[in-house]
């Protein structure tokens, strides 16, 4: 396998982008990454997008977008593992380059979620749950995570205040990210006093509905050394992908995320790293409980210690392991297919030392983690900057 | 061959609305309804309950009391209702599929206002008696509606009762001793196709309809059987409100003691096709071996089916194998307000 580097990153401001269509936001992010890399051609395009068919009525997305970018003819494929689609797009691009099939790949993620009303959005997201045996009964994603939260609270004593601490921290981080959907200072009281969506999760425990796209350009190390000049080269040293039961009914332990643990084990093993080596991480905080459970599954904290860690500030700036410096899904926004790629944009930016006010000093090894549904799929990547 | 009930069960929704709550909305005088019609409250189905769901639960209770009759051995299922969920598409197939009775079974949905349930019972016992099928089930179930503000709104309720008929001597709970029907064309209550709510003939529903048919039917069956009111332990009459069954019972010569166990409408309302059948399940819950029970239904339009049952020793062994009727009416109820009632009965027009 060839070593693979990230040579360009691109992201546009996220939010309710009423004036822009899916193809526009995607093309803007793709161009930003291509410009950042300083390349005008790629050998392959991967697109992580969960449900363009339900959100904008458009399938056959890869060809449409390649053409939109002026690259009709270039091989392109859309990949999908629900909310982990962006992470999968990187994994597929990595395989292209590592295998030697391609030298330069444009890895992208996009989701345009505001072109349907909230009920339709909820329905589209709900298709990531088991349609016949979960969604049939009216369950929603906040509902599924709420059921996990209730057991995590019962088993470990995790509190609503600890959940709220995750939201408060990520919103504080987003204040330093101009591309984030929300720039809003929250307190624990604000979170606990917000509308209940699915007991025990409040609206401020939930990630929002977002339009957005993100892109990175990856290349073989040979190409990377040729074109990156003096900029630090960020290598993808570890990659892990795993699945688990979609239905909670078939999951033995609802207080852990086995797919995340397995994906992390594979990524750590490939990179030759352990959790303690990681300096900065972007994780899948679709709900506050998800960040707590994820930081446990990734090995940053012992099972049950994710909540106290968040409350003590161990995941904040200057903490043991800064998590979601971008603002995370919670505050940066969660255009589902774009999320996994945007995580890579953030971590690569941190490792390059270009994160400005939110820079984690001395960050050389970073991790991204995204997951689909209620943990039915998970993707973990480890990125390292060449010193 | 002696044919009879070998399994019985009732199911009643948990929600109730009080007469006062309805009267308050329409500026009506609650005490006059409570005194005049002897109605205190009625059952209300939730959004997820309908004739089919109530029928399935009642039928499951009937199977529980049947001493292990396998559903596949049931050769006929009749669901009587004036509130079938589909105008075209049988309720009976859903019920039978849920119970595991399909596919070798004869199924029909019946409609005859409030006596569709007793019609199903009549057909079921007749088929068994004729030797056509080993077991047959008759179910009366309704989630009936009265027009908002109409007198019927105080009584139109929801509930179901199911009876499994057979001739296995060791399974008989109540032997059918006689049946009798008395029917004329008497338009006291009707609902035209595509109309949401029924219309009724007001006072015409009384003497020429309810009283004439029940009196004639009950007297007819007693004459046929050579029995008198005092020979019966209990009697159950169709109960559109609390007052009518007591009045007709008294006119026929029955005492309050004979009527009391099956007299449910003051607390349940009128469950239409389920009304006299649920009265019968409640009566079976308390009957003793050897007791004779008279049941006379009434369906507007109009007709009355009568049955005389003789309770067997087996009643003691089976009545607690499934929930009894009266506790379902009295316990664990959820009182709702008129706004909730209007929502649950889909009386509120939603945005499209």
């Amino acid at each position: 396998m060839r070593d693979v580097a990230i040579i360009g990153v691109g992201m546009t401001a996220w939010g309710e982008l009423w004036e822009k269509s899916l193809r526009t936001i995607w093309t803007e992010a793709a161009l930003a990454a291509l410009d950042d890399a300083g390349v005008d051609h790629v050998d392959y395009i991967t697109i992580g997008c969960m449900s363009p068919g339900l959100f904008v009525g458009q399938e056959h997305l890869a060809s449409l977008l390649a053409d939109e970018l002026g690259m009709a003819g270039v091989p392109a494929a859309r990949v999908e593992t629900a909310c982990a689609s962006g992470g999968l797009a990187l994994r597929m691009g990595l395989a292209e380059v590592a295998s030697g099939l391609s030298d330069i790949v444009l890895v992208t993620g996009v989701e345009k979620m505001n072109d349907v009303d909230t009920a339709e959005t909820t329905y589209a997201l709900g298709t990531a749950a088991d349609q016949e045996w979960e969604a049939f009964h009216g369950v929603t994603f906040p509902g599924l995570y709420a059921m996990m939260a209730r057991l995590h609270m019962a088993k470990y004593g995790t509190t609503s205040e600890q959940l709220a601490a995750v939201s408060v921290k990520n919103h504080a981080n987003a204040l330093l990210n101009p591309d984030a959907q929300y720039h809003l200072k929250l307190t624990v009281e604000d979170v606990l006093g917000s509308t209940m969506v699915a007991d025990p999760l409040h609206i401020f425990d939930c990630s929002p509905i977002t339009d957005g796209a993100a892109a990175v350009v990856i290349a073989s190390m040979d190409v990377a050394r040729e074109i990156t000049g003096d900029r630090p080269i960020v290598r993808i040293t570890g990659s892990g992908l795993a699945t688990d039961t979609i239905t909670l009914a078939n999951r033995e332990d609802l207080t852990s995320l086995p797919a995340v643990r397995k994906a992390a084990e594979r990524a750590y093993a490939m990179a030759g790293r352990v959790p303690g080596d990681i300096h900065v991480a972007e994780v899948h905080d679709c709900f506050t409980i998800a960040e707590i459970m994820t930081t446990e599954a990734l090995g940053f904290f012992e099972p049950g210690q994710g909540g106290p860690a968040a409350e003590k500030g161990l995941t904040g700036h200057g903490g043991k392991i800064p998590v979601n410096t971008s603002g995370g899904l919670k505050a940066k926004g969660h255009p589902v297919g774009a999320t996994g790629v945007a995580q890579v944009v953030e971590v690569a930016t941190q490792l390059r030392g270009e994160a400005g006010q939110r820079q984690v000093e001395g960050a050389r090894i970073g991790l991204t983690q995204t997951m689909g549904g209620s943990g039915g799929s998970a993707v973990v990547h480890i990125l390292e900057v060449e010193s | 061959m002696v044919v009879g009930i070998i399994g019985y069960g009732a199911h009643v929704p948990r929600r109730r609305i009080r007469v006062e709550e309805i009267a308050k909305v329409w500026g009506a005088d609650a005490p006059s309804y409570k005194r005049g019609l002897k109605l205190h409250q009625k059952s209300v189905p939730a959004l997820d309950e309908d004739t089919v769901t109530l029928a399935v639960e009642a039928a499951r209770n009937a199977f529980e009391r049947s001493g292990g009759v396998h559903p596949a051995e049931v050769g006929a299922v009749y669901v009587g209702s004036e509130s079938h969920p589909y105008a075209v598409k049988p309720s009976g197939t859903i019920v039978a599929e849920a119970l595991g009775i399909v596919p070798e079974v004869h199924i029909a949905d019946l409609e005859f206002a409030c006596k569709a349930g007793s019609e199903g019972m009549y057909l079921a016992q007749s088929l068994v008696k004729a030797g056509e099928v080993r077991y047959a089930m008759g179910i009366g179930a309704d989630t009936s509606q009265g027009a908002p503000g109409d007198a019927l709104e105080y009584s139109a309720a929801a509930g179901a009762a199911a009876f499994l008929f057979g001739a296995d001597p060791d399974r008989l709970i109540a032997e059918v001793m006689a049946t009798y029907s008395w029917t004329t064309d008497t338009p006291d209550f009707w609902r035209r196709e595509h109309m949401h709510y029924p219309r009724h003939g007001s006072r015409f529903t009384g003497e020429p309809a309810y009283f004439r048919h029940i009196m004639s039917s009950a007297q007819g069956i007693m004459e046929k059987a050579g029995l008198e009111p005092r020979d019966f332990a209990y009697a159950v009459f169709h109960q559109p409100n609390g007052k009518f069954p007591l009045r007709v019972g008294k006119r026929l010569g029955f005492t309050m003691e004979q009527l009391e166990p099956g007299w449910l409408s003051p607390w349940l309302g009128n469950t239409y096709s389920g009304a006299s059948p649920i009265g019968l399940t409640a009566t079976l819950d308390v009957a003793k071996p050897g007791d004779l029970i008279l049941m006379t239904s009434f369906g507007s339009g109009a007709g009355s089916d009568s049955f005389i049952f003789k309770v067997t020793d087996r009643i003691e062994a089976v009545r607690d194998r499934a929930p009894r009727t009266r506790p379902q009416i009295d316990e664990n109820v959820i009182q709702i307000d008129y706004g909730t009632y209007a929502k649950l009965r889909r009386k509120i027009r939603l945005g499209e």
Partner: protein
Amino acid sequence: MRSPGRSWREHPQRYRLEAAKCTGCGRILYPPRVVCPDCGGREFETVTLPRKGTIVTYTVIDVPPTGFQGQAPLVLALVELENGVRTMVQVADVPDMDRLAVGMPVKLEFRRISEDGEAGLIFYGHKAVPA
């Protein structure tokens, strides 16, 4: 409109709670599958699930999805039935949300789950109610 076939083929499971018991290892699968995830067995016998169980975990959904809006707040629970099989169902007829608890005994009742609009099919299945 969805083809009626989509719900029709699930009637044995949704209406009668039929599950598949692996003849190899005894695992009961609900819904049935083609291959047993535990032992790889491919032969099954049909068993009927018990209708009594307890709540493993639950939530009260204040913002229900399309088709369930009128039923808010919607109580969803993972219920473990007496034979150990778990299933996701609604909990209906909860008189007081404070009574909900992990471990609460429930029983399954036949209910309408959703409908395809006013003119479409009605989809039936089971919901839990307090036992």
